[in-house]
């Protein structure tokens, strides 16, 4: 299993190198925006990976409430933390792109606001897990995760439901949407590479969570033994 994971990490590094090369040097320069449009090759895959992480968090939370399985809770914690990291990238690279293109860093339009709310929901989820006392923390966190996930489809649909300053959907957005095939090629390689990075980070964080729980259980057992003497 360890060898397989190391092989996956090597594959991810190779994918990252290839996709970065595609995004920075091979994909054609967009006519109206120029070089800054290449942020798209990091910004959108980061948003996708954050969405995947939050979906894993949602599923793991449902399974935890159903089975009370510690492994599901560990996966929920891991996926939320990695999702927040990718969502942070989205919230920083978006304004960096917006400044030269729109002339402003931020506007309270539906896509931007719902994404910020999404980030705040999962940060509060992590804060709850870190600081809540008592035996019900995991159950409360799982419930928050299930309600919090409602914002993910709202973020996705916001540019379809509302007229926003954020660009309309590039793919699946009707007749006038779509990408140049060379851009599409670079985009899909970046999407794949970022998804693999997300998986690697989630697996590492999951293993860390399981180790931390093992240490905590050992501490508790040692304290009980000490008390019994």
């Amino acid at each position, binding site marked *: 299993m360890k060898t397989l994971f190391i092989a996956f990490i090597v594959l991810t590094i190779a994918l990252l190198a290839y996709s970065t090369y595609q995004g920075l040097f091979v994909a054609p320069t967009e006519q109206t925006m*120029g070089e*800054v449009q290449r942020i798209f090759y990091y910004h959108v895959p980061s948003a996708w990976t954050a969405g995947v992480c939050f979906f894993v968090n949602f599923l793991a939370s449902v399974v935890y409430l159903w089975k009370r399985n510690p492994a599901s809770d560990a996966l929920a914690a891991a996926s939320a933390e*990695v999702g927040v990291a990718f969502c942070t*990238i989205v919230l920083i690279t978006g304004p*960096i792109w917006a400044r030269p293109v729109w002339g402003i860093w931020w506007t309270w339009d539906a896509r931007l606001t719902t994404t910020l709310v999404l980030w705040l929901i999962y940060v509060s989820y992590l804060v709850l897990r870190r600081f809540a006392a008592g035996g019900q923390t995991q159950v409360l966190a799982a419930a928050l995760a299930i309600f919090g996930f409602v914002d993910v489809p709202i973020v996705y649909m916001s540019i379809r439901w509302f007229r926003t300053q954020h660009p309309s959907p590039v793919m699946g957005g009707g007749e006038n949407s779509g990408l140049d095939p060379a851009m599409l090629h670079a985009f899909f390689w970046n999407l794949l590479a970022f998804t693999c990075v997300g998986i690697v980070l989630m697996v590492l964080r999951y293993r*860390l969570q399981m*180790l*931390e729980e093992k*240490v905590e259980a050992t501490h508790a057992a040692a304290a009980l033994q000490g008390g019994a003497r």
Partner: protein
Amino acid sequence: MTGPVALRAAYIVTWAILLGYLGSLLRRFRRVREEMKDLKRSS
């Protein structure tokens, strides 16, 4: 902020966040492993 500067800034921020997070995970791994060793030694 010009386009190329913004592009460079966005790429630097992305990699700083990902590598920073990876670094924090590795530090936490080291700390937990040391704690495990201490527990084994004391038991």
